[in-house]
């Protein structure tokens, strides 16, 4: 049993160390990430919007407001012509 207990103590020591090391690393990395993202936000807001591609969402076929709008406009235009 002493052997098992020793193994348990080692697991505890190693385990707690890893938990603290990893979560401490996480603290710093998250801090860095936050600072980085503030820089990015500033740069991107200053620059003109990079994205010109239109949204592409194959699944939104049904509840597509834009589609409905265009259809509505098309119908209205047609009626006007008649």
């Amino acid at each position, binding site marked *: 049993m002493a052997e098992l207990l020793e193994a348990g103590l*080692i697991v505890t020591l190693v385990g707690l160390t890893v938990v603290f090391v990893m979560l401490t690393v996480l603290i710093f990395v998250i801090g860095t990430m936050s600072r980085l993202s503030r820089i990015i936000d500033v740069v991107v807001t200053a620059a003109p919007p990079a994205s010109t591609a*239109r949204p592409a969402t194959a699944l939104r076929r049904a509840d597509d407001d834009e*589609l409905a709008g265009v259809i509505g406009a098309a119908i209205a235009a047609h009626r006007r012509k008649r």
Partner: protein
Amino acid sequence: MEDSIRELWLSTGLANFRLGQILMMLVGGTLLFLAIRKKFEPLLLVPIGFGAILSNIPIAAMAGPEGLLGYVYAVGIETGVFPLLIFLGVGALTDFGALIANPKTILLGAAAQFGIFTTMIGALLLNAVPGFDFTLADAASIGIIGGADGPTAIFLATRLAPELLGAIAVAAYSYMALVPIIQPPIMRLLTTKKERAVVMQQMRPVSKLERILFPLTVLIVTALLLPTAVPLIGMLTFGNLLRECGVVERLNKAAQNEIINIVTIFLGLAVGSKLSADQFLRVETLGILVLGAIAFGIGTAAGVLMGKIMCWATGGKVNPLIGAAGVSAVPMAARVVNKVGQETDENNFLLMHAMGPNVAGVIGSAVAAGVLLALLGP
């Protein structure tokens, strides 16, 4: 103690990462960037990108036979079940009214499949370049990217060229997102201003009975002529019947929402899990990406040219632009048609007219996949 620490070190990522895995995680990150920032088909590319990252983490073995992504792949992709369930949902989400009102536009959906077959030939020609060694089945799977239909591409690639699945799926969804950039120059190049200004007649209304009989009709024709396309077309038409029959709203809702949403998450993760370094970081992937872009371009051109023929044959009643929607990529391609049409005449609303070839393109690609399965399948 020392053993424990050594064991632990050996189980860290730091001690096990290989360069290929890091590069693939960057690929996954790029897909996430395109999906979230550039809105490239995010419903698929977010799960695919995340799946690529997860499956390239060493030790975790999430894409292995006992990992979550491995299980999902075995259950959902290898069996073909997930793409078919997506098709069930797509059928329930799709309004085929425009196609029923104007069935001739199906021809435009047929023409756009040119892209599939010419790209297949292109892939075979690429074998002349050292480093490329595509089989006929590989080439066919690459060609199907031109179908602009994700589930069809995944279904066929899983059967004909499973080792290329990752690259093919990524190319298919990426180019579908790029439709607004790829198509307009081709459309403008191939049409005159006068053609682009053609105003089409208003469509007739479609009765409820027609809408109910339509999926059954399509299924019967497929059954008679091309049974290998029945799994895809069968699920598409089943979903559409649930939508149109009007007596099973509960099931229709389940197909349109719960089923397609849940399956999309897992399909994406599982496809992403095939983005491994040894299969993706090769010159062949570059070839697939180039050929995929060509496939989209040729498909668009063929659709527009068929549109010109129909314009001429009907004495100018068809605006050739709507042919570009035949590649499918529903409903993006139809919107692009509308937009390009309005560049010439901003009161010309082509959207509804483009929906016919647009949904016909879904059927067209499934039929093309059926032919390829019949000729090259196992």
